[in-house]
């Protein structure tokens, strides 16, 4: 059961995602986009209008996070995951539109677990309450859109060895609900 953290480069390759198993510790490298509550409502409105994801997000990773403002000499302040279940209302649709990895904390709805299995995508959980530590693994931060949302705006982040755990794998295994096996 005990394994070294698995390296996952983002945006993720579907073959790489297939190798991840629930409970694995992963080290994330590459690009993710922050999006949380208000952003999800806007993303759904965009999909309704244009029938596709905004900002070329196909194949990309969503990180449910609202960072603190930048500290002196750092690309940003503290950054960590927010509760993922608040995004459940939008997640299956965003996954169908092309998101391949989501990062947050806490359990997801059965619909999200099912969507991860059907679409062979994953949900990763990071540690909540460790945002000063996690910020050390974020090497750049760039605002992309919806600046009027303040901390809820969309940022493109670059991660280097960012620690997380596989909470839902491509086979529909759920770290928070290990007794349920989807068919």
């Amino acid at each position, binding site marked *: *059961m*005990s394994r070294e953290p698995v390296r996952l480069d983002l945006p993720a390759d579907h073959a790489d995602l297939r190798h991840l198993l629930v*409970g694995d*510790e992963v080290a994330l490298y590459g690009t993710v986009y922050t999006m949380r509550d*208000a952003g999800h409502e806007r993303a759904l409105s965009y999909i309704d209008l244009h029938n596709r994801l905004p900002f070329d997000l196909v194949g990309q990773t969503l990180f449910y*996070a*609202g*960072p*603190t*403002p*930048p*500290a002196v000499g*750092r690309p940003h*302040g*503290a*950054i*960590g995951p*927010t*509760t993922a*279940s608040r995004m459940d209302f939008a997640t299956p649709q965003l996954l169908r539109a092309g998101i391949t990895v989501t990062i947050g*904390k*806490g*359990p997801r709805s059965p619909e999200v677990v099912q969507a991860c299995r059907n679409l062979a995508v994953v949900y990763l*959980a990071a*540690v*909540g*309450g*460790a*945002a*000063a*530590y*996690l*910020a*050390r693994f974020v090497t750049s931060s760039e605002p992309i859109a919806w600046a009027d*949302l*303040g*901390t*809820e705006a969309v940022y493109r982040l670059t991660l280097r060895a960012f*620690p997380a*755990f596989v909470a839902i794998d491509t086979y529909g295994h759920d*770290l*928070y609900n290990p007794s349920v096996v989807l068919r």
Partner: protein
Amino acid sequence: MRYEEQRLDPHEIARLVGKAIGHVACALRPDVLAALKIAQAREKAAQEGSERACSVLSQLIENASIAACDRVPLCQDTGTVWVLLEAGRNCVIPTDIFAEVDAAVADAYASTGLRMSLVRDSLIDRRNSGDNTPAFCELALCPERVGARLHVMLKGGGSDNASRIVMLPPGEGLAGVRRVVVEAIVEKAANACPPLVVGVGVGTTFDKVATLSKRALLRELGSVNERPEIDLFERELLEAVNATGIGPGGFGGQTTALAVHVLTAPSHIAALPVAVNIGCCALRSVSLDVVPGKDKEESGPSATPGDHRRSATPGDHRRSAASNESGRTGSGRAERGVCA
């Protein structure tokens, strides 16, 4: 016995709140840090399946060190500001005692680089208020004590969302309270950034019991409840909460909570109100005496929650209980020493 009158000044209260915010956003309570280290030792000693628990706990302990050294917030959710002012029998309080608090909050959040996490109206206008105001302030009249005590807590949204109030039939008693606590944990703990500090309020009325449960979070972790029967109940609740196996980060393990604190009070003959207020692993609060004419540093937020003895005054039972526990403040100082 007569005591010298103490006039509380709105400007001084606001100054103390502002200073407290900058401090607690980046400095984990020493008692919480000590409890995380005890949990880490326990998870390391566990026979199997504790790798994730150990990984989470070492992240949290290193997080506290980085936050204190680099002056970076412990958590990106720098919370709502809760201010509780306990005024003793000798205090004279103007009705505008909290009038300057919001300005101090806005200034502290901007100057410390904290996140603005409030919307203007919860239902009708969910635009960000832009300066993390308003603060939520309470005044408690405490004729049993002398002098004023100020508590400041930054409360994250995820842990507050995991909290609840239940009006039990009185016949459910201890078992009913226990069921409410365990159900709240099973349903919501994984969202609330465990290991948790669980505040339980029992009694008063529907509107008051929530404050009771929030106040329970202020007590020092590891301190003994002065009421033996409640102390025993707290230990039983902690055991039941940790038996859920939800564990640090919600990834499994023996430590779902670091402590369960219970405050009880009288209630209606027909009522058994229960509130569960969940505190996260980055529980941020400070409690300090408002001392007129004293050295600012002594009454300021450098007086950590575990550091009660220097500022002890008569008439505060909780502190006199905690002050019997020597050496607990040492861990906080040792941690700060790492930065030097």
